[in-house]
């Protein structure tokens, strides 16, 4: 066995190019598995530790106003462990030196820092001490983005009164790991939105809610029975105007985080399988070639008494050693990536703690999986070696019978082909399996690349659809409360305003048979120019006087379509009667959920002839910012949103995170394409060196001979690419389906230049692999090769 092992090591060193190529693919596979699996576990561990330590609530009830005593009575419900009543309200903030208003969400905390649910983690400063009023703790991201520090003061418009608040600390909360205001925002905007924690007593005073709350959070013993418990709570709190009960799993921040964690788990399962599968295929090609080449040697070994087991294990060992080299590299790179990922996550999601570990079981499993794939790749060749009959092996192998290919029947084309192309085509048909594997590898590689670029296109399209096609306003002004037409006239009076349209946003429970959904219905003026709803063909929808237009997601969830009738029940305010409304049409919308109606029809449901609580405004070009400044001090204005800012913020945040993952995907795809092409070229070169050397002898130049191998690669790559497009697009379709969540759905949209880019990059990787093999082609030794029969 010792001599065989020596042969093994020399063989590996002799074929170091191929060894490195395969090891790189294995490395990508194990590294991606380790990185993803460890990041998954780290993130889960970090999240759960955080949630437990800071007592993140299992449920939340939003209501109009309830006495704190009523809230506490929920603790009597079976299964409820603890509850806490809070005051949660959004206010406009006026920061010194900042021209545009900020939105702050005030959340009250108990006066004393004891047993707080959704507790905050103080990054700096202190908790309320009960002495000074007007004390506020702000979220760290808001503080950083606006350069606020402890001791700074800013003004908040609370209940139409300006309060000066003094910052005593900055904090993080399990409730806002992903710091967004609502699902429509998609990405955090730390400059414009922050959380302000104030003491319960201050909040009660400022909002005139003494002894009352409008938000209840609680912990339960068994989260599985949450639905039933929430039903009871809902009934019990009914007199206090409940408008939503939110389970932890529906909480926005938790949901974004959980989607990410779920995504990691899925990726950890799929990605390594792709790479290790490719590695197994390359090993298969490589070892088959080796067994064919070493036929005589194998025969000799057997003739001198080596057992089949010894010979089989020799070739399996070959695959295992290469795999182990890749694995070791993969462990190092994977662990490094895992650490980098959790650090990135802690930046992106706001965690006060970081749980990052080395998981021996993940490392072991990555190795186990890689080894399993290697064995699968090697076993065919090893068995072939075992089947070799010693006496037969000493004689030259009968040449493979050459066939005429199907193409030759098309004599018209065939006659026009140069002999090099004839050789290429015959060669492909001679080694169909290998050619198939090469094309397959390129297909996978280009498919992976396409997926990466696709997500970029899809998000770009999704955003431009929302902010260019649907939303046409420059500025959206949210008002504190419902107003009449006078408000619109007031807004229209501002200099910069060219056109203003009223908007009424109101939360409803929409139901169809047993299905219900809480949706904010938006009332629009008919013929609105600042908001265009589009149908699934992207044609404008005319908002009729009657009836509701639902976004695709809402329509699907309710199981309704145009012509169905749904029941609406306002979730807020004094009107509680239900109305039945026909669904007029379904509108295309990629993110957020929405329902739309004629503004006056919506007003009538609320027993008003006309009501608005927001306005869409088109300004003079470039005047959006000025208008926003002008509106800062106007009472009754709750928030001003400049659309371009929102658009730019989302685009930038998305692009940042996607650029990283796309680069990684492109590199991985490149490794696959390179390794598979390089290996195929080297194998082909070794197998056909006699043929190719004869060509050189006949006067073919080295580049001419190389072009035979190159053109074969290009032909197969072209084929792989052609298959790669539909394959990649099919994967993209799956991705679209996987991302069809409440938060957003991806459009199936791909730019033509993306296909072009994928093609160009794939070809570039093929060229790279060709160049890597060039040295070997140039070194082809005519004299040596032709000296004797193999």
């Amino acid at each position, binding site marked *: 066995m010792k001599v065989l092992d020596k042969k093994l090591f020399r063989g590996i060193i002799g074929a170091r190019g191929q060894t490195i190529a395969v090891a790189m693919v294995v490395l990508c596979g194990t590294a991606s598995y380790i990185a993803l699996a460890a990041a998954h576990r780290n993130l889960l561990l970090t999240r759960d530790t955080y949630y437990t330590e800071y007592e993140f609530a299992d449920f939340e009830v939003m209501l109009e106003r309830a006495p704190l005593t009523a809230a506490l009575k929920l603790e009597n419900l079976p299964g409820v462990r603890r509850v806490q009543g809070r005051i949660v309200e959004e206010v406009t903030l006026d920061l010194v030196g900042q021209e545009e208003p900020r939105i702050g969400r005030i959340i009250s905390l108990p006066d004393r820092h004891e047993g707080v649910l959704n507790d905050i983690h103080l990054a700096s400063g202190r908790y309320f001490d009960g002495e000074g009023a007007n004390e506020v703790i702000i979220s760290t991201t808001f503080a950083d983005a606006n350069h606020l520090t402890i001791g700074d003061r800013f003004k908040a418009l609370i209940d139409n009164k300006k309060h000066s608040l003094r910052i005593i600390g900055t904090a993080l909360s399990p409730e806002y790991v992903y710091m967004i205001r609502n699902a429509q925002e998609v990405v955090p905007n730390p400059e414009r939105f922050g959380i302000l924690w104030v003491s319960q007593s201050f909040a009660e005073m400022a909002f005139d809610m003494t002894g009352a709350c409008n938000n209840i959070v609680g912990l339960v013993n068994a989260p599985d029975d949450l639905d039933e418990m929430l039903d009871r709570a809902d009934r019990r709190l009914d007199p206090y105007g409940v408008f939503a009960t939110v389970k932890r799993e529906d909480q926005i921040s938790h949901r974004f985080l959980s989607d990410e964690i779920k995504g990691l788990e899925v990726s950890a399962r799929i990605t390594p399988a792709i790479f290790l599968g490719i590695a197994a295929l390359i090993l298969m090609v490589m070892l088959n070639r080796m067994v064919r080449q070493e036929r005589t040697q194998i025969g000799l070994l057997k003739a001198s008494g080596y057992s089949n087991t010894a010979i089989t294990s020799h070739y399996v060992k070959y695959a295992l050693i290469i795999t182990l080299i890749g694995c070791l590299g993969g462990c190092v790179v994977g662990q490094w990536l895992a650490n980098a990922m959790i650090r990135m996550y802690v930046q992106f999601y706001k965690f006060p703690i970081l749980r990052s570990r080395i998981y021996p079981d993940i490392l072991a499993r990555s190795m186990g999986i890689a080894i399993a794939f290697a064995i699968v790749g090697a076993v065919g060749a090893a068995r072939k070696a075992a089947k070799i009959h010693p006496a037969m092996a000493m004689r030259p192998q009968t040449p493979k019978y050459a066939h005429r290919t199907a193409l030759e029947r098309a004599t018209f084309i065939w006659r026009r082909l140069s*002999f090099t192309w004839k050789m290429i085509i015959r060669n492909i048909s001679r080694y169909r399996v290998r050619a198939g594997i090469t094309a397959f590898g390129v297909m996978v590689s280009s498919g992976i690349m396409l997926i990466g670029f696709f997500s970029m296109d899809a998000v770009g399209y999704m955003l431009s659809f929302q902010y260019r096609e649907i939303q046409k306003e420059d500025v959206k002004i949210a008002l504190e409360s419902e107003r009449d037409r006078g408000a619109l006239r007031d807004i229209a009076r501002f200099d910069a305003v060219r056109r203003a349209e009223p908007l009424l946003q109101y939360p409803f429970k929409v139901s169809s048979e047993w299905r219900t959904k809480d949706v904010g219905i938006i009332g629009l003026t008919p013929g609105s120019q600042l908001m265009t709803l589009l149908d699934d063909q992207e044609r404008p929808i005319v908002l009729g006087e009657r009836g509701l237009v639902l976004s695709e997601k809402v329509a699907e969830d309710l199981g309704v379509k145009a012509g169905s009738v749904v029941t609406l029940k306002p979730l807020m305010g004094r009107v509680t009667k239900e109305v039945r409304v026909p669904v007029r049409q379904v509108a295309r919308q990629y993110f957020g959920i929405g329902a739309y109606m004629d503004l006056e029809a919506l007003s009538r449901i609320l027993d008003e002839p006309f009501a608005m609580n927001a306005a869409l405004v088109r300004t003079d070009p470039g005047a959006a910012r000025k208008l926003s400044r002008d509106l800062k001090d106007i009472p009754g204005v709750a928030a001003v949103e400049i659309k371009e800012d929102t658009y730019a913020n989302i685009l930038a945040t998305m692009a940042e995170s996607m650029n990283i993952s796309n680069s990684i995907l492109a590199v991985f795809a490149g490794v696959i394409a390179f390794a598979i092409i390089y290996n195929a070229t080297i194998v082909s070169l070794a197998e056909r060196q006699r043929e190719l050397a004869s060509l050189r002898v*006949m006067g073919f130049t080295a580049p001419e001979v190389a072009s035979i191998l190159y053109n074969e690669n290009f032909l197969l790559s072209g084929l792989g690419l052609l298959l790669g497009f539909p394959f990649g697009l099919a994967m993209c379709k799956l991705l679209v389906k996987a991302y069809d969540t409440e938060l957003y759905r991806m459009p199936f949209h791909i730019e033509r230049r993306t296909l072009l880019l994928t093609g160009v990059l794939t070809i570039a990787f093929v060229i790279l692999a060709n160049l890597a093999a060039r040295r070997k082609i140039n070194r082809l030794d005519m004299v040596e090769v032709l000296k004797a029969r193999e």
Partner: protein
Amino acid sequence: MGDPIAALDAGGQEAVFRVQDVEKHYQMGEVTVAALRGVSLDIGSGEFLVILGPSGSGKSTLLNIIGGIDRPSLGRVFFGKKELTAYSESELTRYRRNHIGFVFQFYNLMPNLTARENVEMATEISREPLDATEALKLVDLEERRGHFPSQLSGGEQQRVAIARAVAKQPEILLCDEPTGALDITTGKVVLKVLADVNRAMGTTVIVITHNAAIGQMARRVVRMMDGQVRDIRVNPQPRSPEELEW
């Protein structure tokens, strides 16, 4: 050392090759092996020359150097007035492409091209090629042009290889043990083809072999031993291939 009389004899026509003091050493690990130890030889244009010698005598090395697929360690080779040994790699390739046809012991046909396509492979890169069918007719294999090498006998494969070499209309045909893998009957057919090419087209044919019988069909026979030319003999009456026996 070259025999001056025999060299003169070649000068009957204009010399196409002048080999001057060629040495070839191979580095085999720590030892240097000399394959050629000072060979000088002139080869006349249109000559049918046989180089005879046992294996290891250096005849193949000499052929490879003349054919431009190997270079000597010392000494010079002239092709006409040009110094072959001064050629660059690409000049050597062009030289092989335009002037040389090779025939090997093991044919070295492309297994996945038909007989005709194998010939076309050569015609595609040459300046004034014979038509592929024409070349196959020359070796009497016109009928079998659509067959793949694996469907042809050894002699037939060798004839395809000759057709491939001849189709380029080279000035020189270099044959390395062309009958080495063939039985006597088939071997004679192949040799006859070579003789015909030499006569009909005026191609210089150099055959290397260890088979002394083949020497009888050449006018000059160069015998090699241990990397040197032992002697050069002149046959006043070369025999036709059919008369040979071995």
